[in-house]
């Protein structure tokens, strides 16, 4: 007996059913005002000619979902567990601690700010699910601090279609700054190209003979950063090496930079990979100079990681000493600057409202973002709604004062965030300034020194 073919009858029914069911579902795809997929970066520069026409994009939106007389509900998606959790899982608790601090002082206009933190494990599919939960089920007023480029990319269309404020994405991708397409979305930290441009400009002026090797994370961080650097010193770059997140073997990359004769490594990477690069260079007896973007260099984290190595029996040559002389961009004070009034404020907040562990620079980042959110809510006034908070940020954001070292670029045509960074050097466990804070934008926006004096926190610790 040979079992081979199925009877056509059964299969026929199956096919018929498939057809008839799917017919009802067979719509034209991509109807409506479907947009061509944008390449973040290409459309990053907003047209400056439309400033008047662009105003009040959100004016008609008086939606007050998530706002009551006593509460403003915010939601966020963060990697609290999984491979991206190290470090980043501290940002939202920092923000929450600051909101709790403000709430203890009565909140804003009598409303307490609550932050609902959802874990998306840095998986864009999960991000979509938890943001649905936040907006549809928990009915939050806005999404704030949403973390990550691929993750937030999964929800940006939907948030803007639903006209939900999407405040201060925790990522330096260029995509957030598209006010025409995404009127409800604002970036916050300096975008990666801005950092790249300021680094490139500094090297061109101060180290014109350096042979530059680029050390890049293989995503928008590395690529946007490199694009900025290349605007100034394309001819000085001798090698460009990418790593992929999760692969901790960077010996091939560092070896290639060494082989290319690079004497200055410029890094757009995450902190753990800074430590890996420095360690691997040590292994190869390679002693270049380093310049890292702000994302790559959390002095507390990196030196903490490196310092632990020297706890082993022998290796005194490893340790925090490896970082001496490393240059880095920054736009926020770091926790090692204990005499900085902002750090003192945030430390006080964290001691009162944190989880009992020491304050980290990720926590500072979260609090500084929360500080901006509080300012935005204040600027929107007592009759806050989903439309007027956007125009309030567009109108007042550029003059927000806070711990950031360069002003926000916010306007009706610009949703990008902090407009510049300073360059400093790590010396003897402390950071000393190499170059004052410079500001710029995307594209060919010129680089100019920042024109603000460093702000000091108000006595109450709450923006006034």
């Amino acid at each position, binding site marked *: 007996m040979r079992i081979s073919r199925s009877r056509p009858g059964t299969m026929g029914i*199956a096919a018929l059913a498939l057809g008839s069911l*799917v017919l009802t*579902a067979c719509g034209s795809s991509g109807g409506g005002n479907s947009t061509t*997929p944008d390449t973040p970066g290409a459309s990053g520069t907003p047209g400056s000619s439309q400033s008047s026409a662009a105003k009040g994009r959100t004016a008609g939106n008086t939606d007050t979902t998530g706002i009551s007389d006593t509460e403003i509900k915010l939601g966020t998606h963060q990697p609290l567990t999984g491979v991206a959790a190290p470090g980043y899982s501290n940002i939202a608790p920092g923000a929450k601690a600051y909101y709790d601090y403000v709430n203890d002082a009565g909140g804003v206009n009598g409303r307490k700010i609550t932050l609902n933190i959802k874990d998306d*494990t840095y998986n864009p599919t999960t991000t*979509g699910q938890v943001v649905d939960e936040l907006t*549809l089920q928990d009915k939050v007023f806005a999404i704030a601090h949403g973390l990550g480029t691929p993750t937030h990319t999964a929800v940006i269309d939907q948030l803007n279609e639903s006209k939900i404020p999407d405040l201060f994405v925790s990522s330096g991708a260029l995509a957030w700054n598209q006010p025409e397409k995404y009127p409800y979305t604002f970036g916050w930290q300096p975008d990666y190209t801005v950092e790249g441009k300021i680094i490139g400009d500094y090297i061109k002026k101060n180290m014109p003979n350096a042979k530059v090797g680029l050390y890049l994370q293989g995503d928008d961080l590395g690529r946007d950063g490199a694009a900025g650097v290349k605007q100034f010193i394309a001819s000085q770059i001798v090698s460009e090496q990418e790593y992929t997140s999760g692969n901790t073997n960077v010996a091939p990359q560092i070896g290639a930079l060494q082989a290319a004769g690079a004497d200055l490594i410029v890094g757009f990477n995450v902190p753990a990979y800074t430590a890996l690069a420095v360690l691997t260079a040590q292994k190869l007896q390679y002693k270049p100079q380093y310049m890292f973007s702000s994302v790559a260099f959390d002095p507390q984290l990196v030196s903490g990681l490196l310092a632990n190595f020297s706890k082993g029996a022998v290796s005194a040559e490893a340790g925090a000493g490896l970082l001496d002389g490393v240059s880095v961009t920054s736009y926020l004070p770091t926790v090692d600057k204990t005499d900085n009034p902002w750090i003192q404020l945030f430390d006080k907040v964290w001691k009162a409202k944190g989880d009992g562990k020491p304050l980290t620079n990720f926590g500072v980042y979260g609090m500084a973002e929360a500080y901006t959110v509080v300012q935005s809510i204040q600027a929107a006034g007592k009759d806050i709604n989903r439309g007027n908070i956007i125009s309030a940020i567009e109108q007042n954001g550029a003059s927000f004062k806070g711990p950031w070292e360069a002003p926000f670029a916010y306007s009706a045509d610009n949703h990008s965030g902090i407009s510049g960074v300073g360059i400093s050097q790590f010396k003897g466990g402390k950071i000393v300034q190499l170059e004052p804070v410079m500001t710029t934008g995307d594209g060919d926006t010129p680089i100019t020194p920042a024109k603000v004096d460093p702000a000091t926190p108000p006595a109450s610790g709450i923006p006034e």
Partner: protein
Amino acid sequence: MALDSPDVTDGELLGGGSRRVTGDGSGGPALMRSNGVKHLLLVVLAWIGIFLLVKLLQDSNPFRVTQLATMAYYLPAIAGLTVLTGVNGQISLGHGALMAVGAYTTSVLLQRQESLPFIVVVLASVATACVVGYLVGIAAARLHGPYLAGATLALAVGLPGLAVYFRDFLGGDQGLRVTPPSSPAWFESITGDLGRGYVTVLGWALALSALFFLSNLVNSRYGRQWRAVRDDEIAASLLGIDLGRARVLAFVVSAGCAGVGGSLLAVVTRLTAPLSFTIVLSLFLLTAIVLGGLGSLVGAVLGAALLTFLPTFLNNQALAAGLDNSQAANLAPVVFGLVLVLVMLLAPRGLVGTTRTAYYQRRARRSRSTGA
């Protein structure tokens, strides 16, 4: 919460795992055909049920509607996997990668060919997933148990890297944006504005079609061949079954179903990025088929419901117990892991298998007692 998912299938008929190949023609032609009609009816009714549910929840609980969409993309992938593993006896730790193939096909087509009808896009996604499934299936057909697990695991971790390698075409780390299909005018004139519910309804139409296709298939000669191969290779080859071909076909069918799931995932998530297709997805799919009940399509529906609703449920329970968000997020996987272990220790045949065993045992006891 799993009650949201209607019981769309007939447990006994579709519990492929419990049926044995007897070769005595127990599934005669007349019975088969009537089963086909019965299944068709069930599937249509289920779809109408989902449609009504979407209309009902659209305004009162829109989050449930999006959760149903999530369930719709898990369902075909899980159903295909349960047929592969439960009916044909091949394990796969790489079905997440096959979903990725479907999702990327859909995303690329929707981006470049906006005018294509969605059904064509889905069929193309199924086709590419089948091609990849065929290639893997050829290798898989020669492997046993853990060796197959290892090969498919390598597939799950290897394939997403291609999206970064071909970043100009596949969008790299940030992935490809997807504009979901919108409701055609004639459909909307009947149903009214469904909003995002349209994708849910569309997804369930496809998911149920896949389920119907599989239910007929496992009850056809192919299904019997697969079971024969699973139960006794030597006997099966004595019966003239080409073992390799039967295995490859099962893999291709299962991959095609994963392709449907991936295609739906793309339009529901609206982004196709490598980070969505980590090894965790593949392992979750495997978990779902075992929790539901291996080889049973009803079990697949339960498994899809668990994957969709359990994480939110656990998180909310933890919050209700007074934990903060971070603690809840950290505790949820502990509980999830322990649930897996406990189900395997206490109900090793999954929810469907264990329920069914209990039912038969009770019936047997009752008939014994009435007989005596």
